[in-house]
């Protein structure tokens, strides 16, 4: 199979997945027992009020017609309009997106900076105490939910030491100029709590990747011509291990986004997660539907990019094979 058809195949799969995901979201929100207008207004609403809402937003149309209208809007970048506030979903998402993106992207960077050396140490010294310590640390990190890590960090750095604020957010650029310090101070603890957990997951994969590298023939060859272990690892091992680490990072994105939703609540950050949970509280179904699709769509896009990057890296995958399924 040529590269073009392999890429086309991936793009088709992506489009099909997106349609499948949107259908699943639509069904979950719309086809569950009870009707949307009734759910939004609560059980105490009068039948007249329910009928009025139903008519106002065309809820009396068949579900398939409403789904088609929603999907049609997506093609033009319209995620729908809130039944509750009358505002478009996009206009409510836009100002919140920045907070969540800063949080997730910084957390990825920090997690990598921690996990790569930790995983390398755990692999290199796997039969000695240094390796045991590195592995144990990641095992502990895996058991701690991000929001608990966040609360512990608040206790230490905000309550006891009073170095950093316990919660809140300040945009990087306000009407009165830049607020780099205030902005950074309020992101340190949320980023750290999200990164701690991710670093633990990544450490385990970095370790396995390097343990595998250490048993490769070319590694032994490099050692036998007089290279030190670290030099051989650095020159060849890192690149070989990188492929599996990038894969895991891609697959972990969904976990990161979910982690961000919860961590935003710990630190009262006005991000997408806060928007989504407020929408759930208000039973603003259109907003919930739109934001969930945006998040799931982001995960699917990342998976697509990971798949496409394989095609670029490894020609053997071009003949239609999918990526190997990890167990976690």
């Amino acid at each position, binding site marked *: 199979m040529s590269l073009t058809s392999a890429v086309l195949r991936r793009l088709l799969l992506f489009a099909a997945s997106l349609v499948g995901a949107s259908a699943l979201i639509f069904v979950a929100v719309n086809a569950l027992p009870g009707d949307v207008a009734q759910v939004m207004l609560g059980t105490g609403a009068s039948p007249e009020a329910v009928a009025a809402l139903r008519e106002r937003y065309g809820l009396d149309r068949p579900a398939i017609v409403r789904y088609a209208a929603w999907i049609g809007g997506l093609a033009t970048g319209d995620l729908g309009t809130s039944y509750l506030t009358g505002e478009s979903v996009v206009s409510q998402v836009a100002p919140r997106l920045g907070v969540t993106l800063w949080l997730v992207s910084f957390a990825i960077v920090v997690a990598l900076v921690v996990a790569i050396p930790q995983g390398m140490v755990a692999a290199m010294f796997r039969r000695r105490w240094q390796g045991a310590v590195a592995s144990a640390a990641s095992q502990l990190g895996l058991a*701690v939910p991000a929001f*608990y890590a966040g609360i512990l960090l608040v206790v230490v750095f905000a309550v006891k030491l009073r170095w950093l604020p316990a919660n809140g957010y300040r945009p990087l650029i306000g009407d009165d100029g830049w607020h780099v310090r205030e902005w950074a101070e309020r992101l340190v603890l949320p980023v750290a709590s999200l990164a701690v957990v991710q670093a633990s997951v990544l450490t385990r994969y970095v370790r396995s990747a390097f343990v595998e590298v250490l048993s490769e023939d070319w590694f032994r060859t490099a050692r036998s011509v007089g290279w030190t272990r670290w030099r051989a690892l650095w020159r060849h091992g890192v690149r070989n291990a990188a492929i599996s680490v990038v894969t895991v990072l891609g697959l972990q994105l969904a976990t990161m986004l979910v982690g961000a939703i919860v961590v935003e609540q710990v630190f009262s950050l006005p991000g997408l997660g806060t928007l989504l949970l407020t929408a759930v509280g208000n039973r603003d179904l259109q907003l919930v539907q739109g934001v969930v699709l945006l998040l799931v769509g982001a995960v699917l896009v990342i998976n697509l990019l990971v798949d496409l990057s394989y095609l670029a890296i490894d020609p053997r995958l071009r003949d239609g094979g999918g990526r190997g399924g990890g167990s976690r």
Partner: protein
Amino acid sequence: MKRAPLYLGAVLVGLVVLAALGSLVWTPYDPAAIVGPKLAAPSFAHPVGTDHLGRDVISRLLVGARATVAVGVVAVALAAGGGVPLGLIAGMSDGRYAQGRRGAWLSEALMRAVDVLYAFPALLLAILLAAAVGASTATAMVAIGVATIPAFARIARAATLTVMTQDFVLAARASGTSVGATAVRHVLPNIAPVLGVQASVSFGIAILAEAGLSYLGLATPPPTPTWGRMLREGQNVLFGAPEQALWPGLAIAVAVLGLNLLGDGLRDLLDPRLREVS
């Protein structure tokens, strides 16, 4: 020494299950009753103190284990019940004894559907359900269970593909055993150990998810105590009584650590060669 993680994991998991079951019979106090002063320090009467309303924290922790264990067990059962047949069908229709191209196509279609589901973390499913029908213990179970189906489907398919290359499967098919009987009698018993490891790991992930959901108020509603909501309540008094948030978080970490160690230990027991690699 080699099996220390396995035993430690089993002990930790045993403690959590014991707390959950034991709390059905006895707790020091009624977990919902106000039995002392607000935010009392640990004492003989209240070993880890009382909460912001004056309820006994240890009793609430013990009862909180129930929701954790119940949601974990039901979610993993749902995930295995949905994912294992999917993976089994996909694996058996794709392997060495595949029924031609149609089998490969079926396998591909099933796994792509599973991939779509993989893009839905438990939290997003729980949010969809909470928005549509309101949050409850049941929505948390369903959300976590459905979100875990892909993990079981993938591992079951991978294990099935390996088993399908074995001669005894060929022998069974050649002697006229039906596909269904082959699956149940020959494939399933051979992939069961791998599924057991997956169940242990998934249980840990389910506990983390349940804690997150109840922290956000998207799972078991009050007055039943859950570790996640206790953390949330503890966070509200963080400046006055930081230890309130410490205990429920510690309980979550112990349960998850136990299940992860148990999963790792079981995997090593199954395949000692893997110990070095992962």
